[in-house]
């Protein structure tokens, strides 16, 4: 177990290092000379040499990288060219929003998909299963930008249950924060429900064919007990792998929903920064998103060991 996790952790460190190099090079690979932009009309060779020295841009690339990395570890990711806002600050306000959207939408997705799959997989291709499978197929076909306006029209404009737009920080008012996040989360969750339901359903159906399920029945255990205690755990591999990829894609990947609900999450900031060529912001967000993705995969690898002891001992 410890050996397996240590191996995965070393992988995590190596991948994070590669990510940091790529994020660092991102700015250097872009065309254009920063000194020309900064100096403007004062762009003389003499001024340029002084500025290069001040900015440290005359040092070897690896040296620039270590200086940058040290700053990153101290929480300094530079600042926006546009409004001088520090990148760390942009991340600090945006990341919790993404995190909250992901947590709420994924909790709903699992809470719907898991019981649904446990019910329908017992009698595949029967009416209940057909309805659920067709329904999730529909959910998969509806992108968030279709679902979001429908949700707004029905629950915000029509029923006035939820606000249509806006974001209240959690620290300011937890209740209205969550209240405002429900509709955006629902817009994201539909696709996740469909994916999770289908992955778990097909794994469960094959698990239920196993001898150990017949064995469990022959012990007199109830169907409910068998589904939860015998069939569920060995059927969660595809679900976990799928959830890892899906959640990873949602970090800074919810731009459309953030835009529609006027929430400035990471996705929103990232797209805005790309459009305005605000490279340090792009660099900072990319770095954090990529590392978060790797950390999620590490966590999923850990969950595999919880689900199946053979992963680490077999």
């Amino acid at each position, binding site marked *: 177990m410890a050996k397996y996790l240590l191996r995965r952790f070393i992988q995590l460190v190596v991948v994070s290092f590669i990510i940091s190099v790529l994020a660092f090079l991102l700015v250097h690979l872009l065309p254009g000379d920063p000194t020309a932009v900064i100096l403007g009309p004062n762009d003389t060779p003499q001024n340029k040499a002084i500025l290069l020295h001040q900015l440290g841009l005359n040092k070897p690339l690896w040296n620039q990288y270590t200086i940058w990395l040290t700053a990153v570890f101290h929480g300094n990711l530079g600042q926006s060219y546009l409004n001088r806002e520090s990148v760390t600050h942009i991340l600090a306000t945006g990341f919790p929003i993404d995190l909250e959207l992901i947590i709420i939408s994924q909790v709903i997705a699992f809470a719907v998909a898991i019981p649904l799959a446990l019910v329908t997989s017992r009698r595949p291709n029967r009416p209940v299963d057909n309805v659920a499978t067709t329904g999730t197929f529909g959910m998969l076909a509806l992108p968030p930008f279709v679902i979001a306006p429908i949700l707004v029209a029905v629950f915000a404009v029509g029923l006035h249950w939820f606000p249509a737009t806006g974001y209240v920080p959690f620290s300011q008012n937890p209740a209205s924060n969550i209240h405002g996040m429900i509709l955006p989360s629902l817009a994201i969750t539909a696709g996740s429900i469909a994916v999770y339901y289908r992955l778990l359903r097909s794994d469960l159906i094959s698990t239920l064919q196993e*001898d150990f399920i017949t*064995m469990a029945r*022959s012990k*007199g255990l109830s169907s409910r007990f068998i589904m939860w205690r015998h069939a569920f755990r060995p059927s969660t591999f595809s679900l976990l792998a799928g959830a890892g990829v899906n959640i990873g894609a949602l970090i800074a990947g919810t731009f459309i929903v953030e835009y529609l609900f006027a929430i400035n999450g990471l996705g929103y900031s990232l797209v805005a920064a790309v459009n305005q060529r605000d490279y340090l912001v792009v660099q900072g967000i990319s770095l954090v998103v990529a590392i978060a993705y790797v950390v999620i995969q590490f966590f999923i690898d850990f969950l595999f060991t919880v689900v199946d002891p053979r992963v680490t001992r077999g």
Partner: protein
Amino acid sequence: MRLRRSKGGRGKLEFADAGVNGEPLLVVEDLHTSFRTGRGTVHAVDGVSLTVGRGQTLGIVGESGSGKTVLARSIMGLLPAQDVIKSGTVHFAGHELTAMTPEELRQVWGAELSMIFQDPMTALNPVKRIGRQITETLRLHLNMDRSEADATAVELLRSVGIPSPEVRVRWYPFQLSGGMRQRVMIAIALACAPRLVMADEPTTGLDVTVQAQILDLLRELQRERHMAVILVTHDLGVVATRADDIVVMYAGRIVEQAPAHTLFNDTHMPYTRALMDSIPRLADPSGMRLHAIAGRPPDLIHPPKGCRFSPRCPYVRDKCRESEPPLRTAGSRDHLFACWFPLVNGVPTAPSGRVEARPAPVSPAPRPVPDSFADAVPPDRAPPGDAAVNPEAGVQSP
């Protein structure tokens, strides 16, 4: 009285104590099980009746596809409800299993009637510790608390010969060898001291040297606990010395049924004979071809007309192809067979035109399996064609 389940008293089943009324423990009458498939209806079990006495061992023998596993599961009521057609009755310890609700059956399964599966690798849950797989039955049926169940699980593992059981309870199935896993399976099946254990090919997946150990262990525990065992196998050699009675199945039907020594001494059905011939013998010269039964078991969607074994029978005659022989008795009342021209002393009771089709046994040596009966097997198994025996000799028509 063994009263052992509480669950709030709802639909609680009571079981009469062993041997009060002298009735057999298990009575199966005219059991039919068919499966609806895309190709048609498969008649996997077709009118089977049998009984098992308390503490007795019944061997059910047949090739793959003869319906023996389906029979075992039908008796338990363990088959899925979908696309299965069943009829007939099963009485077990004074209760009619075939009339029980799923709730009631669950009270019987694992507690009074349990099952040992063929492949212990696939029949044990790979992600649950073996201790937990034992204790869940104890807690369900015997209402033990966790620590009591844990202690009992250790004792059960010890009783099936697993070394250092207090460590092994925390192991997962993949950490154990095949033989050990089958011992765990036996421990699970016996956990609640059932009256009847269905062992479905319990040793087929195991090494030959381990097979005997497992079977001996099962027999020892059976005697200790006075439980009945149904031993399902394709290998007559396995049941020869271990079963009180043997049922030979072919194509979903019983073709011969007798106490073990009668079956081996006085085989009436050519199929049973063929099964015996297919057991390799130590006395055979090395390199000798094994006696396989020519052909394959019939299609159970469209079983052959007449005797179902007729397409493969070396002694087949016209009558066999036309009408199906009933299960009838000969000299002794407990020896049943379904054959128009039964073998007597290893020789068919009527000459057959197809005798040459059958490879003559190279060694006429007595069957090696049941030592005690060996001398009763006729040493000279004359070529069947020479036998000028009256077709009906020694056979009472039903």
